[in-house]
């Protein structure tokens, strides 16, 4: 076989390999195990062991459809964990292109699974705010001035749980599901200047940078990409068996199921890269023919 001709194959054949490699594991689930890494364990332990029932957690939806397949499973797992622990959740969004709608849809989806949780008493959605850093700074001084009403326009003084939430000091933790730079701002602005612990769930593209913040203790945990989301799902389902039933719902997209597909496509990509390099080295060693 002429290996060099294989290297010139139409790129659409490569696309077909990737497409088939993605579709088949969705149809024929594999069920591969998920191992836990320390950054995700740290995030889980912070919520599980260091917060008391009734503590306030601020969950910031700082992502949009461009990274929803990674960040949405993280958001779902964190919200389910918080609700299972009896923590109170304040949801906001600071990402302009889709953050609000992701917050609305994910919170509604998870809250419906916990009918004992009441809106305004156990959780609220305060919606989106422009200005990002300006809003983050102002929330340290007066939360109600940044968010005078919830996502539907209900004034905060009509929401019982917001009566005693004035600044970050009334909260125990911030969890940011982020694409891009907003997650970094929670670590290098809010945590650095106001001291509130921060967990960030960045996309896999941004995740390598966050290890520096994690090591410097500017973050209390890190959920990197779909793998981080699948690890958190595993931790949550191990601790709360009732949630395992939710995650086993047929047809429900979860990060754990996504990792099955990820595994297959990764192997395809690794095979492409290794094959390409084999051909490269083989063709370099071949003696050149005289023209």
């Amino acid at each position, binding site marked *: 076989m002429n290996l060099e001709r294989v290297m010139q194959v139409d790129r659409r054949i490569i696309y077909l390999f990737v497409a088939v490699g993605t579709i088949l594991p969705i149809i024929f689930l594999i069920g591969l195990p998920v191992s836990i890494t320390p950054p995700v364990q740290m995030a889980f332990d912070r919520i599980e062991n260091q917060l008391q029932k009734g503590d306030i957690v601020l969950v910031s939806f700082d992502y949009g459809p461009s990274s929803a397949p990674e960040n949405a499973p993280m958001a779902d797992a964190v919200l389910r964990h918080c609700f299972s622990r009896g923590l109170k959740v304040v949801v906001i969004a600071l990402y302009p292109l889709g953050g609000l709608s992701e917050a609305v849809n994910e919170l509604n989806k998870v809250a419906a699974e916990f009918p004992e949780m009441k809106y305004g008493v156990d959780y609220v959605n305060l919606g989106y705010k422009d200005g990002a850093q300006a809003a983050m700074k102002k929330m340290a001084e007066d939360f109600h001035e940044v968010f005078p009403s919830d996502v539907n326009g209900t004034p905060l003084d009509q929401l019982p749980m917001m009566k005693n939430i004035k600044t970050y000091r009334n909260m125990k933790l911030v969890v940011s599901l982020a694409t891009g730079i907003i997650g970094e701002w929670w670590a290098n602005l809010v945590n650095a200047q106001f001291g509130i612990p921060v967990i960030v769930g960045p996309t896999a593209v941004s995740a390598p940078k966050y290890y520096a913040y994690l090591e410097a203790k500017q973050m209390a945990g890190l959920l990197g990409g779909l793998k981080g989301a699948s690890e958190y799902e595993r931790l949550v389902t191990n601790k709360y068996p009732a949630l395992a039933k939710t995650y086993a719902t047929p047809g429900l997209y979860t990060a754990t199921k996504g990792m099955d597909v990820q595994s297959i496509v*990764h192997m395809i*990509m690794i095979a492409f890269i290794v094959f390409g390099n084999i051909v490269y080295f083989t063709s370099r060693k071949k003696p050149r023919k005289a023209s």
Partner: protein
Amino acid sequence: MPSLGTWLAAFFTLCMLSFLYKDNPFFRIAESFFAGLSLGYYIGIVMNQTLKPNLVLPLIQNFHANWNLVFAAGLGVILYFRYIKRVAWVSRWALAVYVGYYVGVNMMQKLHGEVIPQVGNTMLSLHPAGVGTLWNLVMVVGVLSVLVYFYFSAEHKGAIGGISRIGIWFLMISFGAAFGYTVMGRISLLIGRMVFLVNEWARPLIGLIT
């Protein structure tokens, strides 16, 4: 049977994926429609989530306590003067406040939130000997060599050249790791769309609900 919304979403998804075969009018229409929707989305969130609750309602409900917001509104409106030739220069005032504020915030954020903690946490103990100390040495050598690499005021020759070479190796390891994570990230996005197409559109259509 998939709902109307699912059909629309599947149509848009397939229009976008058709670009993989070649550029075509369906892709271009979907792309243009997406650009329009995103701008319309901005209109919705800004009006509904910022201007109404943070500007309009406070001025209407309690002007006495919130009169200073008139200045904020003024700055915001002045930004649009750039589209009127005769008074375009006035928009620089609003731009100056906007840029000035964010660079001021950024400066403290970078120095206090990045430089100081990151430098502080690089000052690791290199004693006593042990595995932990070895990894501390890796981190210290890594950070210093990368910083030397990015110091372009001196030629990278001799000792500086040698240290910056080590910095390049650390950077290559980091970029390799970043590539691996980027692959994971991009594939995750594809998985999300394919799961939608298979589970929410194709399966109900073919009646293969598992």
